């Protein structure tokens, strides 16, 4: 699974550097010197890296085929060690929470979005009780209020 991730990230890097080079080419004489001097080697290196990771990925694939009988042993179920597909799901879920917080801040402001986020996260992800979750969410936003609005007299 990790090898696939390597390939994915390596591709992203190539795309990013390619963008830097293509856009950099369009700037005037002076402003494009340093960008091109840095991004062209960057592009070259990330292409090499991409090639490397593809090769490793192919090799890992071949190894898996010969190792199939051993790989089917079940892993112990502790909440830390998830098999790769489960882990990926968890990662996406966490990012979804974070992005929701950002959206919440954007549309409702900090003072509303943060307590709701904390409450929901502590209750549904961390699986704490309603009481504890509300307590933590409330005390945190109260602390923020005191420090920023009362103490520093700024708004968020």
């Amino acid at each position: 699974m990790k090898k696939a991730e390597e390939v994915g990230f390596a591709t992203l890097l190539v795309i990013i550097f390619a963008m830097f080079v293509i856009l950099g080419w369009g700037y005037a004489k002076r402003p494009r010197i340093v960008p091109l001097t840095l991004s062209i080697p960057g592009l070259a290196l990330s292409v090499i890296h991409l090639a490397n990771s593809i090769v490793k990925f192919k090799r890992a694939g071949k190894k898996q085929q010969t190792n199939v009988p051993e790989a089917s042993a079940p892993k112990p179920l502790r909440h830390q060690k998830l098999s790769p597909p489960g882990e990926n799901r968890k990662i996406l879920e966490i990012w979804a929470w974070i992005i929701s917080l950002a959206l919440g801040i954007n549309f409702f402001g900090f003072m509303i979005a943060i307590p709701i986020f904390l409450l929901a996260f502590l209750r549904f992800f961390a699986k704490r009780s309603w009481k504890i979750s509300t307590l933590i969410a409330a005390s945190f936003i109260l602390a923020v209020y005191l420090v920023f609005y009362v103490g520093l007299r700024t708004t968020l």
Partner: protein
Amino acid sequence: MIEALWDGLVLVFSWPAIGYMSIGVLFGLFMGFTPGIGGPVTLALVLPFSFSLDEVSAVAFLLGTHSVVVTGGSVSAILFGVPGAGPNAATIIDGFPLAQRGEAGRAIGAALTASALGGLFGTVVLACIIPVLRPVVLVFGPPEFFMLAILGVVFLATLSGDEPLKGVIAGLLGLMISLIGEELIVGTKRYTFDLVYLWDGIKLVPAVIGLFAIAEMVDLLVKGGSIAKPEKQAALSSPWTGMVDVFKHWGLFVRSCILGVIIGIIPGLGGDVACFLAYGQAAQTAKKGEVEYGKGNIGGVIAPEAANNAKEGGALVPTIAFGIPGSGSMAILLGALLIVGITPGAALLNEKLDITFAMVWTLAIANLGGAAIMMLMAKRLAKITFLEGSVLAPIIISVCFIGAYMTTNSMGDIIVAIVLGVIGYEMKRLNFSRAALLLGLVLGRIVEQNLFLSIRIFGADFIYRPIAMVLVVLSVLVMGWSFLKPVLQRRNEKHAG
């Protein structure tokens, strides 16, 4: 001069000056600890309170507040991976991994000791240079800035550990990101996609918060558990161990202080560079058998924290000598000094020398006092790293967003933090050096800007200026060393095996 030295000390300890300094120190520590709120904002907020104070009290208050911001910030960098202030960014690279190994107490102890002693170092140098303040500042120009930045870039090579290709790619990525925005030479807006937010480029604080803090929090949530894995030996988590570490690594410490002071003295490089250059320099000296840099080497905490505080002593130099602020916070300080009736420049150096020394003493005492206060709380604060991650992480993430947002009060900061958070998380999983990216981000613009300025002012042979040449030689040596070291290590292993 000795008289003024004594007079300054007396002034600082007199009431109400000492009272105001204490309040300032407490406030500065707190503001430093709160992520995202750094030196300039803190000073801007306390400034109005100083208008009605007398000269000495105002100085004690403002300088007292200012000098400890980075001290307070180092603690949150270690505990949560969140930079308390811009200059604490480098401390996270090894500080947070130390916390993850249960050694938060030790890391904090080392950071505080390095901060306090580094600050002292800066003030001593400041005091000694006072007679020759002006000529010293004038020695450095764009060619020297350029070479210093190149030296920093060269350090990138060693930050990559065992996969140099990834390190260089990360560094180049960081350098490119720093070029986003409007450049100063002709005014072209590069890579901004017509977004006004990007005109001023990607700012350090949201980037660091994303790259390190948010990435680490996601990692924490995925893996479960707490920041620190439980059951670590008591000795390793004691702050006093950290204090001893500073003395054990005294060579590294002194080098970082010197670096910090020099960068502080040179206006135009910006304070954030100091901690990264110090970190980069420390990484060069990693010995075999030590923890790898980036995974929790105590040197990676000592170096930037020493440089941070030493730099503040240095930054006072051009501020006092010319009225040219050595850093963002100094600019505010300058304004405040003027209001209170203290005019920087020859007058301050000749007639009001006692006030000058009062400033020096304030820096020294505030540094020591601030570090001592945090030290007392260190062990208790370190316990936070043993709390359950799924409860701690959402709180830290919320704090991260607030801290990032305070940079420009716009959603752009939060978006930057998230985007870099995603990149940083992947980099962590795939063993790309985030430190290298960060170093590139800090240095990119400086390199380009000073390169062009140097060529325009001096022509292509700007490199032959004496100090610049010294730096060129140094850079070549460092580059050579970073290639030789792995070769030599392999040879030693062959001999041993």
